[in-house]
């Protein structure tokens, strides 16, 4: 941005709803000068994109275009884009070479909103839903324009299709998205993770909406993955989604000696495998769980995949355990993170500051892609892949046109460029081997089917097709007849055709058929077809299915009981320790920060600051501020629980009690309460009081005092107060957490 254009762009850029920073006549002069110089500028590729073209009237844009035309210069894309984003429309000539998204924007900019225009533009808008990699500003401009025309359905569908790459487009839709969701069938998801899942929860709604479901999500909270696997969700849930991340699942405490590090890593993998085993034997809903992606920073350099200290090696081991579990259990669906994130470089998959800030294990971009991968996996698990691949012949299965070029003129074989077409035929054969029926759909003389036998480069043969229609009828009619013959629904048909017209006709006449946008370049098509999730199998071949049934039968129920760990066993095996201390100069800032930031596990949400906390801690006969640090076998969680208490002689009032969500669900809070009550007793307190002050976020602690043996004093309003008579009621505590005092 160091070009001299910057100043001009600033002075010309006019914030919406305000007057221009320079007078209009001055802007006019600058624009005229720019248009004068346009051919020279286009030739040298400078200057023009920096202008805010929204300020330039349409007749001057036409002047610009005709001056380029006279200079025999094509309108370059870098100039067309800002013109279109500024709301201008381009005539057919200069706009012809633009990518489809910009062409659509040009037509929308020129549209007045007539129903006939909507009818005409609708199929090309639908096809744009399949085009990946449209730049985010173009997506946003298209959605804005569609909304301005009140074409809300088209705006919604387009924004939804691109929500994983351009989430802000969906936010433009506003309430219409909520209304659309309300009309979709619900899928109730329990979401848990090895770290924070809130960002994924937000991304799952649009991701599932693309597949036609409304995701109703309940979150297990931070670090709830193993707990949820060991105590599978109840009937109120249709699937468990588990988000694993390397930072949350495989942190290493390098204070341990090396053999210990390796042993802990192995134990962690065992623990995950056992939890998956328990899940598959107890749960009656599917589990969608991701593998861990390739790490971007090794811990053993070149030896990262070989040595026990290597992070990549640890991740490989964990992934292998996940994949083994998925292989054995029909209920466990493993989502390959490397595949889901393949369009991002490893360093783009994690934003370290977000990890340190909120234990968020994936960057926003990676989270969006994982959400899409989870929703695709759910669709595949529920509906399976398509059953029919209906495929065109000319310029799809071979290069050239049979009617024009004859058999000998068709490109398909071992050599360039026919090898790209032969590769697509190989992919068709692969899909056939994976259980998808092939159907030939070609507008051709009937004898075109003989090409497969006559041309030496063809690897597909006529009898590989379960059916074919080679005639001059509309392809939609042919596929409807064939689908009826095969007794299959049209929604289980995938249609591949190089011609945009044929694709558009199919979308209009047989809207149930799945019609993706096939890449124009034949070289891109084989890999594109492999990535197309509509073709992905759930399980492969009956032999696989029966093998896993045999496997399941071999294991006796007793064996299962022996292997499956309970949640309590899991907690005990963590060897958790709560280390208590009173607040001091070193921990004061952290105590205050916890008071500001904790929302969920927070009894009173009283935001005490540093001065108030130190005041309470000053005199041991008047108050105390107790802090707790949690450690377990795998490492330190740091200071995670705090309470500030006021003491008046033999009575004490808990002013605040709060805990970080990092350790929720591990019984730490009850161990802490036990220690707090014991400490107060040692200071001569006989009665402890506490209050629960409800907020929109702290519903999880409504019954906390009851679970610690407190009795309710008042509770007519939403706020409840509680009391505990030391010595009369059994002291609270936890068998799962050992406590000690910091020395």
């Amino acid at each position, binding site marked *: 941005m160091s070009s001299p254009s910057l100043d001009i762009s600033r002075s010309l850029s006019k914030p919406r*709803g*305000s007057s221009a920073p320079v007078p209009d006549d001055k802007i006019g002069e600058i624009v005229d000068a720019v248009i004068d110089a346009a051919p020279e500028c286009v030739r040298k590729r400078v200057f023009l994109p920096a202008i805010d073209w929204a300020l330039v009237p349409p007749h001057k844009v036409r002047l610009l275009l005709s001056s380029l035309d006279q200079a025999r210069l094509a309108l370059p894309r870098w100039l067309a884009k800002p013109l279109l984003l500024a709301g201008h429309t381009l005539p057919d000539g200069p706009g012809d070479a633009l990518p489809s998204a910009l062409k659509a924007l040009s037509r929308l900019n020129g549209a007045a909103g007539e129903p006939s225009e909507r009818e005409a533009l609708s199929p090309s808008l639908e096809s744009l839903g399949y085009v990946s990699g449209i730049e985010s500003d173009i997506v946003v401009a298209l959605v804005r324009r569609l909304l301005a025309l009140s074409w809300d359905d088209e705006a919604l569908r387009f924004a939804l299709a691109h929500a994983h790459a351009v989430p*802000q487009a969906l936010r433009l839709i506003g309430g219409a998205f909520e209304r659309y969701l309300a009309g979709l069938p619900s899928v109730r998801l329990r979401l848990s993770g090895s770290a924070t899942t*809130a960002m994924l929860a937000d991304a799952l709604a649009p991701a599932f909406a693309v597949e036609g479901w409304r995701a109703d999500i309940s979150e297990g909270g931070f670090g709830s993955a193993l707990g949820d696997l060991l105590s599978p969700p109840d009937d109120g849930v249709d699937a468990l989604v588990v988000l694993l991340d390397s930072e949350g699942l495989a942190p290493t405490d390098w204070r341990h000696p090396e053999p210990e590090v390796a042993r802990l890593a192995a134990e962690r993998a065992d623990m995950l495998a056992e939890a998956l085993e328990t899940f598959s034997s107890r749960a009656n809903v599917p589990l969608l769980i991701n593998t861990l992606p390739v790490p971007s920073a090794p811990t053993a350099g070149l030896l990262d995949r070989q040595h026990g200290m290597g992070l990549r090696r640890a991740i490989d081991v964990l992934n292998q355990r996940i994949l083994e579990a998925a292989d054995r259990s029909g209920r466990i669906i493993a989502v390959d993170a490397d595949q889901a994130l393949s369009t991002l470089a490893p360093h783009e998959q994690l934003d370290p*500051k977000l990890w340190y*800030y*909120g234990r*968020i294990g994936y960057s926003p971009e990676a989270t969006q892609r994982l959400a899409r991968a989870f929703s695709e996996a759910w669709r595949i698990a529920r509906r399976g892949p398509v059953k029919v691949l209906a495929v065109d012949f000319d310029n799809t299965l071979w290069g050239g046109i049979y009617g024009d070029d004859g058999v000998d003129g068709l490109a398909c074989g071992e050599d360039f460029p026919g090898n790209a077409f032969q590769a697509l035929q190989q992919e068709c054969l692969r899909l056939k081997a994976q259980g998808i029926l092939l159907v030939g759909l070609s507008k051709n003389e009937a004898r075109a089917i003989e090409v497969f036998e006559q041309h030496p480069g063809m690897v597909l043969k006529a009898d590989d097709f379960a059916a074919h229609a080679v005639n001059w009828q509309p392809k939609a009619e042919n596929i409807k007849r064939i689908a009826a013959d095969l007794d299959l629904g049209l929604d289980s048909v995938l249609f591949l055709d190089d011609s945009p017209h044929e694709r558009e006709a199919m979308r209009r006449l047989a809207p149930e058929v799945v019609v993706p946008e096939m890449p124009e370049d034949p070289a891109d098509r084989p890999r594109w077809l492999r990535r197309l999730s509509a073709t992905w199998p759930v399980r492969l071949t009956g032999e696989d299915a029966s093998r896993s049934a045999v496997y399941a039968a071999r294991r006796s129920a007793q064996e299962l009981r022996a292997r499956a760990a309970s949640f309590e066993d899991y907690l005990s095996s963590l060897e958790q320790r709560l280390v208590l201390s009173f607040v001091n100069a070193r921990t004061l800032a952290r105590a205050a920060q916890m008071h500001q930031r904790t929302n969920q596990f927070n009894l009173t949400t009283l935001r005490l600051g540093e001065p108030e906390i130190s005041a309470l801690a000053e005199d041991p006969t008047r108050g105390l501020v107790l802090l707790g640090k949690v450690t377990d076998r795998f490492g330190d969680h740091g200071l995670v629980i705090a309470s500030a208490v006021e003491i008046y002689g033999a009575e004490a009032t808990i002013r605040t009690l709060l805990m970080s969500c990092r350790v929720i669900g591990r019984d730490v809070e009850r161990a802490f309460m036990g220690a707090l009550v014991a400490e107060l007793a040692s200071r001569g307190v006989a009665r402890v009081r506490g209050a629960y002050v409800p907020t929109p976020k702290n519903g999880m602690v409504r019954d906390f005092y009851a679970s610690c043996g407190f009795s309710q004093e008042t509770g007519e309003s939403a706020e409840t107060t509680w009391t505990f008579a030391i010595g009369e009621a059994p002291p609270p505590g936890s068998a799962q957490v050992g406590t000690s005092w910091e020395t």
Partner: protein
Amino acid sequence: MDTYASETELAYPEICEIFADVFQHAGPLARGTSPDDVPRWDSLQHIALIRALETTFRVRLSMDEMMEIRSVGDIERILARHGV
């Protein structure tokens, strides 16, 4: 509160759009506008705000800057520091 007379007075008018997009906040912005004034500005949406600033202004904000941003005025100051 130190309010802007109009959105042109914001050093970076894009901040208005970012607040509308991230927080669905349509109200006026002031230098002192803080999480207390914007109901959806919680710790999770703070991340979305940081990301929107990073992509819109093509900067990379540090951990310290992420913590430093507690108001619209902070955003302006930090963007200016990045030479935006």
